[in-house]
């Protein structure tokens, strides 16, 4: 299964920045573009079914269906210092919203390492991979016609 085109583009852009400090700055800039899930989609307290497992930054994932059946992804990150989670949310939102569901479902969790590099703590890796895994799981469920996100 091919990766969603926008995700491939994003990863290639990041990998063209081999300098760690420059890449970090790029990710910080991405985190600055984070927009919380709009109130028309979800309001606090967010349902536990939307909580990303293992994410200590308390990330939540929400979806909105497009007319063509693909999904827009929205996020909330409750930890005000969860800057990596916010950067990951922006990447996933921009790269996977509107992408074919079978492609989103096939995104591997270790894409996190292509974004952040290998120098992540175990907890941070698991939390970020949990975000990817939850998005993929939702897409897989929808692609299978199982309904709710």
């Amino acid at each position, binding site marked *: 299964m091919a990766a969603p085109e926008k995700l491939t583009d994003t990863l290639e852009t990041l990998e063209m920045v081999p300098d760690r400090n420059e890449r970090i700055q790029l990710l910080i800039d991405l985190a600055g573009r984070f927009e919380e899930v709009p109130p028309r989609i979800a309001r606090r307290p967010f349902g536990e079914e939307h909580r990303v497992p293992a994410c200590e930054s308390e990330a939540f994932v929400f979806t909105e269906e497009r007319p063509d059946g693909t999904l827009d992804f929205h996020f909330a990150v409750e930890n005000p*210092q969860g*800057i990596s989670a916010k950067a990951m949310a922006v990447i996933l939102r921009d790269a996977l919203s509107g992408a074919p569901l079978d492609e989103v479902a096939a995104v591997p969790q270790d894409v996190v390492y292509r974004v952040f590099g290998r120098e*992540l703590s175990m907890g941070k890796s698991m939390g970020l991979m949990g975000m990817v895994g939850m998005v993929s799981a939702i897409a897989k469920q929808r692609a299978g016609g199982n309904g709710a996100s």
Partner: protein
Amino acid sequence: MSEIESRGYARPEVLVSTDWVASHLQDPSIRIIESNEDPLLYPSGHIPGAVEVDWTRDLNDPLRRDYLGREGFEAVMRRIGASKDTTVVFYGDRNNWWATYAYWVFQLFGHDKAKIMDGGRIKWEKEGRPLVKDVPSYSATEYKAPERDDTKIRAFRDQVLEHLQAKKPMVDVRSPDEYTGKKLHMPEYPNEGALRGGHIPGAASVPWAKAINPDDGTFKTGDELRSLYANDARIKPGDDVIVYCRIGERSSHTWFVLTNLLGFDKVRNYDGSWTEWGNLVGVPIER
């Protein structure tokens, strides 16, 4: 008496307030060190003059599961411009979880001129204090460190097994769901890096964050902490205690509390923790 001194800690001098740090930003005998879980935080802005010591890049052996050795520690200290006389002040995200981890690793090399900024990064931020992106540069030093001493504050698996057989106290500082092993059985939940869930038999459950005031991230008072560990873990100063979590990071926070704030004189952090114990063949596990 300062507010921190009034809290009844055994060693109040190991904690400093955000006010204290703000008034020592230009003090050449002080090196402020940020240690975070999130690798983007320090570069996004930090206390003026603060350097970063990163757990994964700076404090771990890149190949085997262990901490850096003497030469590596010397290189870190030389890079941040610290001498034997420099007082290092750690702060960081997640209620100083990673700051206390770095503090603990520094103690393996005997750098005891070390403090924690109470409340950590979030308190500094909430108080509207300045954060800058400029990465400071300090003149390299000729820091000489002793060999790492793992005997006093670090425990290994065989010692944990002996501790367990001797029925000495242990504190599991993970979340209740990790302690009971429930988390490993949640559908599609990452497996926490361990094949088995549960806890080391006999270990009491006292999640690390219970030592923190949730509103501002500061440490609870001495009386509150004494009561917490006496009631929930049935331990007291003078006991021989081992603490553990998943990889030894959260338990370094509890190690800091027991050792410095409550004056326990024999507390060891089992950094192999659940990622080792939960994968070991044949060791006892309790749920």
